[in-house]
């Protein structure tokens, strides 16, 4: 729009606008946020696509993520190496998928990946147990935990293999009224 900035070339900004749900101003703001996580590591000039990754421990200190019980899983899901070290592309990708205008289908896919702790493309009982413990901070007794996990599998499992595949998960989430408004991070 005519503002002088040297962080990105215009083609890069146009490309980001095509690939995410962000506007130009938001992409520049995201770069500012990314940089303030590790100013000595992240350069100001991104015109030649430097290969920088910010480690997991720094990313989860962001105010948007720091209170979230699933922060580690979120960052790991969007990182290329699977260990939570995000490049700027991954960083933008993460916030784009979780933003308000992101469609339900996309959010469902990422939600499934986040809740699948052992990354076997199924949400098995162990994954459910971990999710529940993170949500209740260990306040429920083990019997209650088992009961809830069994109930959840029974409700959502359509093919009877006592774990949730993606289609089971999608079928269950598509009817949930709160999903879109809760699975949303504003940056």
């Amino acid at each position: 729009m005519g503002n002088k900035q040297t962080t990105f070339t215009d083609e890069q900004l146009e490309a980001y606008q095509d690939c995410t749900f962000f506007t130009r101003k938001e992409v520049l703001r995201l770069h500012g946020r990314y940089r303030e996580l590790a100013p000595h590591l992240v350069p100001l000039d991104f015109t030649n696509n430097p290969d920088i990754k910010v480690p997991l421990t720094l990313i989860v200190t962001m105010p948007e993520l720091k209170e979230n019980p699933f922060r580690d899983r979120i960052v790991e899901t969007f990182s290329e190496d699977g260990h939570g070290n995000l490049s700027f592309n991954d960083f933008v990708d993460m916030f784009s998928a979780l933003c308000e205008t992101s469609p339900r289908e996309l959010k469902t896919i990422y939600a499934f990946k986040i809740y699948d702790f052992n990354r076997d493309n199924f949400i098995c009982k162990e994954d459910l147990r971990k999710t529940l413990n993170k949500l209740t901070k260990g306040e429920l007794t083990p019997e209650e935990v088992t009961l809830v996990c069994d109930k959840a599998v029974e409700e959502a499992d359509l093919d009877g293999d006592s774990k949730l595949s993606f289609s089971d998960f999608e079928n269950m989430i598509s009817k949930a009224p709160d999903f879109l408004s809760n699975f949303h991070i504003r940056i």
Partner: protein
Amino acid sequence: MKVLTKCCIEGKRNIFNLLPVSCRSDFKAIMCSIRKLSTLAKRQYKTYIFLMIFPFISSSGSESDEDSMSEGEMAALKEEVEEKKKVIATLRNQPWRMKKRLVVLKEAQEFVEKFEGALGKGKGRKLYAYKVMMTKKLIKFKRDFENFKTACIPWERKIKEVESHFGSSVASYFIFLRWMYGLNLVLFGFMFGLVILPEILMGLPYGSIPRKTVPREEQETAMDYSVLFDFGGYCKYSFLFYGYYNNEPTIGVLKFRLPLSYLLVGVGIFGYSLMVVIRTMARNANEGGDGGEEGDFTFSWKMFTSWDYLIGNPETADNKYASITTSFKESIVDEQENQKDENIHLRRFLRVLANFLIVSCLGGSGYLIYFVVKRSQEFANMKKDNLSWFEKNEVEFVMSLLGLVCPPLFETIAELEDYHPRIALKWQLGRIFALFLGNLYTFLFALFDEVTAKLESEKVIKNSTEWVLNQYYSNYSSFYNTTDVPPPAVHPSDVIRGPCWETGVGIEFVKLIVSDIQVTYLTILIGDFVRAVIVRFLNYCWCWDLEAGFPSYGEFDISGNVLGLIFNQGMIWMGAFYAPGLVGLNVLRLLSSMYYQCWAVMCCNVPHERVFKASRSNNFYMGLLLLVLFLSLLPVVYTIMTLSPSFDCGPFSGQEKMYDVIMETIEKDLPAFIGNLFSYATNPGLILPAVLLMVLALYYLNAVSKAYQQANTDLKKKMQMARDEEKNRRNNKDSTNQVMKDLEDLLPNKSLIPPPTEEEPPPPDVVIEKGSKSPKMKPGAAAKGVNLQKDVSLAAPNPRAPVTRAPGPRKGPPGNARGPQPGPGRGRGRGGPPRH
């Protein structure tokens, strides 16, 4: 992929027919190989093949046929380009890594650029190139406009702060407030630009004609604060109210038609609001989810959708953990208990009693308002000085008081009813809605009684003024013996004035809204701020813990505030026709409200312990807004159609009815045939069939919608059945579906099967219990069934092996009392035993 192959085949046929015979065989071979490759489902390969073949085709084609061939391949190429463009458009919806997206984007863009130029050859190339350039410019313009629009959205930071502290439900109120602010800003733009500004700039100034001047008897007090606060004095005779506007058909150099514009803007405000509300409802409708039933996925939803990702504050997060834990514990308890078979009769009696009390409250409040408005009419006839402030503002005071006192009263009475909190919330909202509506309409009815009284007195005044005028003319002409009589030289402030009921109504509305604002702000100040201060500082020297115990800090009342906002907007819609300045007042009110309430919520409120949303999506409140819009349209339409305007004030003075302005414009200013058109269109002979047609269309659409709903429920049932059968197939249990059991009973072969082994008795108990509750199986029932089944399967070894081969002749494994195997054949198709 199938679509692509089909297009490819069609494209091939087109190209094939256009080729000269010599080239057809080559082309055939090439296209065959393309087809084979395209079935490998990689678009890039096709693209590369095209890239490879393109030079061959263009070179092998004879020069004379170059045009026709490039036309044929142009079509196929164009399709490729369109495809690439579609890929670019949907790139952000793909769940790929960003790097992959950037790479695909670059490829697609290069391809499009390269071949869009090439496609420009041949006929219509100039047009095509122009079209391409315009599309590009349009996309860029749209993107810049979107960027600009998002930059203009105010209060993003504030809302984000509120969200991170209180979660998404409280923030939804502020988002709604911001949306209202935008709507009111547009309405203000209409009103100001098309009505107020022309009158101020091009109309007659203050003091030139009677309607614009303060009457002589009021002039001494016209500047007093008390009079101004009551919107009398100079306020009353200003552009804020209806009475100021002149009824000249056109004003100023531009010949601006003010009366017509006033009427059209008054109606257009409703039209625009309707459009915006419906558009927002349609947009929100997609968010609500597919409409699963309440009990279907209780635990799954609690697990996966209960955490609010917007929370960024440690205290709120702790609160949320606690509330999620409580919610799980409650659901577990609900699961494990049977439905408490309490005394239904007592419960019903209590509920009837509660409803009776509440209806009587509502009736009482309606009567109170009517009584107070009638009293205010009496006060209006008395001298103003004898009245105390309370008596002067009685109506507004009483209405605000009712709006403050009744909702908590309803909540207390509702304790008798003992509903689930979500249902109780819905009842509470419905009752508050009925209260506000009842109050507003009673107020309106009382007001319109006043209006008819004013109209009566106006007739008298009108007659007397006409009589005076006639007297003056006859005297003048008889005295000076001329027929050319100049208008009477009376100062505008001395002319006898009618009561001008529209301005009166406008003033009432403005006073009501102002008092509503005052009450709201005071409530927040006292109810939240002072309470918080007291709890915080008195806690040091009080017997019990104020923070945890009785008063504690307030929670933000979302539904109360949203309803207040909706009703405020309803009053604005009603009053804007009589007081054009009201919309501007509302814009200021919403602006200050935003800052004030944001501060108050951050400073004095604590996050909710349990959050119950009133509905699945925001459409509940939007639906209420729509209802209020229709209800506030009614009085205005009634006024325009039925009541006659005042004879000496406002833009419609002198007309029989307000809509006569439109008739006049059509007759005088528009060409003749439009007038004819309108007279045909308003012919009852045309309107009645149109209404009949609409009724028929309504009936048809209703029937279609019912049919869809039925189809939907049938599909759901089918899915449920398939799911159960699949589970049973996995667990190798007897069929639990009542239909299947009936079918089994009817089968003749059952009698040949030897009596079942000892495993049989437990399953029938289980089956019968489950059967009694099917076909609509609730998870609650399933829970017991599942538990029992588990016990059973542990108790008795399962003699049935997993079914891995085709059912042989009827000497199958014992206890296999099933008829045609339902599981694999139906529904899921999981590769069961082959069926011959």
